[in-house]
């Protein structure tokens, strides 16, 4: 009996970006802590796929979540344990605050055991990490299962079609938004996870040295485009919409 298969899920936090959020954005500086944060839903979908693959191994696999989170955000990662991860750790360096995928990949790559399957919701992180690990990166994954020791993966293509690939087992799978949603936390697991202490480990400086990260100049809100007609008059609105539909149908014929 060899070591259990390692299923690794990097978990990022994302800003709750909302045009109503009380935000001040300086011309030359970036305050990246202005908004509340939550776990990236795509990464939680990646966790769901990792749990499926673990089940497909009959338990002969472990799911490790590695949070990319500063000490203030690390408690959010308890939710990952509550949703079924076997182990939750975290790493952090201030240079990672901007969310640059190349920096994240550089920091993560030494944490990934040989032969692991990595599952992520970020195409950019997945691509950069796969490159560092020297393994394939399959984007747009909808589902995956074991097939004679390898992975059989269904994924979307940019032309709207789908395809089934065989890869791995060592690979980085980028989970599509259309994949299964994240599992809900179990009550007992959530209670146990609430007692977890997760302290991010510092990323050794030499790992990030030389990584070219675009420098942030400014943050700003996207300007809303002005509508042509907004109406609460159902009859008038429906008539305008019917006219648009007829015009669009005529243009296509």
């Amino acid at each position: 009996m060899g070591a259990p298969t390692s299923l690794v899920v990097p978990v990022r936090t994302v800003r709750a970006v909302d045009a109503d959020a009380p935000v001040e954005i300086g011309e030359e500086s970036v305050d990246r802590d202005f908004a509340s944060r939550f776990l990236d839903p795509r990464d939680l979908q990646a966790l769901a796929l990792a749990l499926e693959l673990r089940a497909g191994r009959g338990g002969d696999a472990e799911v490790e979540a590695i949070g990319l989170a500063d000490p203030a955000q690390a408690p959010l990662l308890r939710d990952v344990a509550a949703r079924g991860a076997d182990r939750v750790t975290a790493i952090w360096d201030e240079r990672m605050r901007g969310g640059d995928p190349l920096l994240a990949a550089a920091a993560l790559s030494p944490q990934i055991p040989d032969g692991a399957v990595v599952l992520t919701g970020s195409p950019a992180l997945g691509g950069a990490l796969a490159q560092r690990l020297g393994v394939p990166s399959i984007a747009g994954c909808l589902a995956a299962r074991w097939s004679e020791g390898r992975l059989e993966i269904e994924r979307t293509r940019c032309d709207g079609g789908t395809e089934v690939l065989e890869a791995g087992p060592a690979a980085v799978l980028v989970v599509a938004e259309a994949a299964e949603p994240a599992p809900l936390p179990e009550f007992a697991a959530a209670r146990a996870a609430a007692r977890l202490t997760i302290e991010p480990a510092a990323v050794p400086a030499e790992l990030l040295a030389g990584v070219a990260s675009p420098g942030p100049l400014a943050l700003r809100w996207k300007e809303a485009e002005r509508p042509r007609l907004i109406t609460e008059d159902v009859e008038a609105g429906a008539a305008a919409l019917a006219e648009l539909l007829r015009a669009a149908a005529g243009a296509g014929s």
Partner: protein
Amino acid sequence: MSGPALVVVEPGTGPGRGAELTAAARAGGHEQVVALSLSADPPAAAAADLDLVAAEPPTALDATAVAAFVDAAASAVGASSAFLPATETGTAAGAALAARRDGAFCEDVIALAVRDGALVATSGREEPLLADLALPADRFAVIAVRPGAFPPATGATAERQLAPPAAPTAAEAEDAGEVRLLESRPAAADAVAVAGVLFGIGRGVEGRDGIERVAALAAANGAAVCATRPHIATGWLGRDRLVGRSGATAAPRLYVAFGVSGASQHLVGLERCEALAAVNNDPEAAIFARADLGIVADLDDVLPVLERLLADPAS
């Protein structure tokens, strides 16, 4: 910029995508643009009036293999930057390419400019919050461009065939692990990606009955149907109906959003739609900021009137 830009055209995206990437490259200060097609059928890129690198692309679109392929092409033409579509595979391959070349990477780019000789990319990754990022001038730059963000470039450069880039070496291919294509399923004939008129079904359309009513109206008017995430999660609509950041992108002449809130994750898939109409009972819904026509009302009030007017315009 010191070398040409290499634009990477994914298969199945038509000639327009290459022209969009060319426009992005020119906005980034590149006069010379070379196209690399990831399709074994390169006329899509040729039709965009671009210089063309002829080569046999990887058959299975593993992003690591694509990055190796693009890397070889970039070396062959002396490119100083690469522009890829910000699709799932395009973004993954772009980041892999940047890591491979110790370059800099910027994802979901919607605008580019050259300021004081430096390339500044605007990323919409956290839209509606936009970030202006300065790329280091001494590094190979990889830009993942949001589909539809740049109007296609016009004006041709002479087509010429360049030497094919070297394929990834056998050792590299072995290192990365073989990826085999087992099965390929084409997009449905009424796929959202090619629809002229597209009806979007959002959370405001309630239950299977609501979906079927909008779908029936779509079918009667030659429109395809797409959906936002909640209705895909219920299984009432197939995953091929998801439009957005990780679903399909669409460029319909008209998009009609029923009960769609207008979250950026959905709207990024519709950057290229020509006209957008929305029906939503929430006057604050973000979709109205994008709409050419907005009807602030309950769907149950609007649909009967719309059905009547479409069935009998004189009514």
